[in-house]
Each structure stands twice: as C-alpha cells, then as structure tokens.
C-alpha cells in the first residue's frame, strides 16, 4: 500500500483549521503550512477562506509565490475556497497585489455585497465524477467572490440560479466561491482528494 495521503492547508490566515478537520474526517493526514519548506512531499494544497488581501500579502512576505507555482507545475493538486479562489485566479478586482494566476478565471471580489448579503444556497454539481450528484450541495457564501470569465479548458462545476459560475476546475486546480469546510458534507473534499490519484 502507498503511504497515507498528506494534504497541506495554507495556514497564513483564515479558516484553515476547518479544512484540516474536514480532511481528517475524510481520512487523510492534514498539515498546516506556514513556511514554503512545508510544501515538500504534500499530495495536495488547499488555500482556505479568509481575507484575500491579507493572505496575498503574507504569501509575498514569506516567499510562497514561486514555491506554490512550482508545486502546481510538479503536478500537485490545488484547491482555493473563497479567498483562496481569489488568490489562485488569473486576475481579481480591487487588489493591489497580483494573484497567483494558476487557473485561467477572472474573479470579482465581494460580488454579492457586504456581510448582510452573505447567503446559503443549494447547488447542483456538474462534475461527472462527483459523488451522489443527484443530491444538492448546500453551499455557504460569505462576502463571496464570483467567477466572471473562464478561459480555455476551464470546466464550470456549479452555477447559482442566475447562472453565475461559483465552482470551476482546470486539470488539478479547483476553485469554489463557497466554503465546503463549514458544512458536514465532505463530498467536495473527497472530490479534491481524487485529484491526487489522477495520472498526469
């Protein structure tokens, strides 16, 4: 048997503990990543929810930009939730620092307004290999971003009733505008864990 799967959660700021707990409930080892050297040997990396301006600044201060890009080039799966989606996008609105540009989507920050406009919504997930697809995924949107444009080879996995894309994937890079780590449903975490088993 291969060694136990180890997934890192970028722990610079945000709800990294919730992702760690979801991963543990999904039966894999979870590691809080605070320095670039800790990326070594991981089977996947999650950039959690939080404040994208804060996380991007800390990514630059602690020199994570190149190591994360190298991690993806080396075939490592990456998932960004909410702020994490903004961080990994090609571009995002109202940011003074460049995003990581790891998936060809452009993102509008705070697309629905302020906190009183945050909402919960049931989504239908379009991915063919998503578990129990007939069962809606209850999604939590907190001061959430939305995907405005998607580039070549980007597959939209979920849309709001108004058609706005809120989950997408290209290869081993996954982005969700909502927070699967805040609800007990582990299907998105399991879907992401499936990426690490994927062939190049």
């Amino acid at each position, binding site marked *: 048997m291969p060694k136990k799967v180890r997934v890192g959660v970028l722990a610079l700021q945000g709800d990294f503990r919730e992702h760690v707990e979801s991963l543990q409930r999904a039966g894999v080892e979870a590691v809080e990543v605070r320095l670039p050297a800790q990326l070594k040997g991981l089977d996947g990396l999650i950039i959690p929810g939080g404040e994208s301006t804060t996380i991007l600044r800390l990514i630059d201060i602690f020199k994570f930009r190149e190591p994360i890009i190298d991690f993806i080039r080396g075939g490592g799966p990456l998932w960004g939730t909410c702020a994490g989606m903004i961080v990994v996008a090609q571009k995002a609105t*109202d940011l003074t620092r460049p995003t990581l540009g790891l998936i060809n989507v452009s993102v509008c920050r705070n697309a629905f307004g*302020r906190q009183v406009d945050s909402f*919960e919504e049931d989504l239908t997930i379009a991915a063919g290999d998503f578990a129990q697809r007939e069962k809606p995924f209850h999604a939590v949107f907190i*001061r959430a971003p939305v995907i405005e444009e998607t580039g070549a080879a980007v597959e939209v996995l979920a849309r709001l009733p108004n058609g706005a894309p809120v989950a997408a994937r290209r290869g081993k890079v996954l982005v969700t505008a909502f927070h699967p780590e805040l609800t007990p449903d582990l299907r998105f975490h399991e879907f992401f864990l499936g990426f690490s088993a994927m062939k190049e």
Partner: protein
Amino acid sequence: MEKGTWLLKRGLAQMLKGGVIMDVVTAEHARIAEEAGACAVMALERVPADIRAAGGVARMADPQRIKEIMGAVTIPVMAKCRIGHFVEAQVLEALGVDYIDESEVLTPADEANHIWKHTFKVPFVCGCRDLGEALRRLAEGAAMIRTKGEAGTGNIVEAVRHMRAVQGDIHRIQTMTEDELPAFAKSLGAPLEQVQEIKQEGRLPVVNFAAGGVATPADAALMMQLGADGVFVGSGVFKSSDPARRAKAIVEAVTHYQDPAILAEVSRGLGEAMPGIDVRTLAPTEVLATRGW
C-alpha cells in the same frame, strides 16, 4: 436562498481567524491597516486611548465617517455601538457594516440589558472577562467573542487575565462529569446546554479573539499562544511612532505566533510602542472592562 443565518454570522468570524482587526478613525488609517494586512478594520470616532483621555460620553461613530471608511477598503468593516443601544445597532446595520461590536469601550446605554442580537441580520461580537460572560453574550446572539482586556492602556495584563479565565474554565469543564455541569453552569451564570456543548467540543462554539492592551508583536503572539483565534489592536497601532510598520509586524506575529525566531525578526526596530498605563493606577470608574455583566 437564506441570509442572516447563524452559520453565516459565525462563518464570517471564522474567516477572520489568524488575523488582526485594527481600530481606525479615518479612511487614511483604514488604507494603512489594509495595506499592512489587517483582516478587518473597526471604525470608530476615537481610538480607546483618546476616548480615555477625552472623558465624557463615548458614542457610535458618525455614519459619515463609517461610510468613508467602508468606501476606502475592500476588507470587512466593523463598527462599535454602546452596550444595550439597539438603535445605534439598527443604524449600523442600515449602513451595511459587516460586524457590530457591542462594546464596553463606549459608554453603556443600558446597565441592565445587552442587545438581543438574534433579531439582527448583521453579526455581533461582544467582550467578555470570563466564560460565563462569554456564554451570556452567546445566548443573546453574539456570533463572535473577544476577551475585553483593558482598552487604551497598551498593557496586556488584563487581556491575559481574561483569556486565562475563559480557557481555564473550558479546561475545568473537560475534567468534570455530566452530573457536575448543572452546578458549574449555575456558578458561571450560563445556560446548561452551552456548558454541555463545551464539554463535548472542548472549545467555545464561536471564534474568540483577544482585545484590550495589545501593543507589540510579542503581545499578539502571547494571546495566540494562550488560545486566541486572532487579535484586535486598538490604540496599539495608531498611537505608536510608526503605525504602518508596527501594524505589519503584528500581522506577521499572529501568523507565526509559535515561531520565536520569526517573532524576533518582525519585532526589530519598530520604534516607540504606545505609552502604557499601569492598570492598578486606574480608578474603578476608569476601568472599561467592568461595563456589561
């Protein structure tokens, strides 16, 4: 589509964890805080050290000023209302602030009752000195807790006292048997169901930040090691000699609170910290933490 739910209220606080929420009084301050890496700002009329110096009645900030701050940054904007002043809270909700702090730093409007926070769509954070106070605020609908500390003093001692009190009681509950919980809940002045939940989960059901007295990166890391999920910095940034630099250093210290080498690096050459106050010299009427119950 559901809005204003408990999950959403509590959830925004979860997104702020591992971060620093900074008091700001102008749009310019707010931009400095955002650029330094603050995960949110707290809009108020004066920082606590100036409230202390000015005396008189401290109220909710001018809505004009709050709007300017909201327009200046893309991070969440919180604002303070007086304890029990539910109309100030209604005004702040109408302005669209992201979180309301029902705060002892302002002059209380009601000495018996806190705001019934469940009826609001906007989430609330409230201060506490111990676990019982935290659980009473939760029962009223607070979606985030902060230990009070003693605002505007630049002195961490009260923040430590309050965080120790909260964590100590959580630890004690872990060692208790089920039949000991009702009497302990009574002694805390807290609902039994919440004490039982803490026994089961081993922690508060909401995010708990530290506040009141954080002046240095080491202060911030101390509160994190004592179990805070993040920190509020009031006067500590903008009453120091180099606010932008100190703000950045405190943000980095909260991320790497367990790494003394990084703490040493970020603490170097920050200039003068805010002047501090020995809290033992405060008259009882000058102590802010005893406001509320």
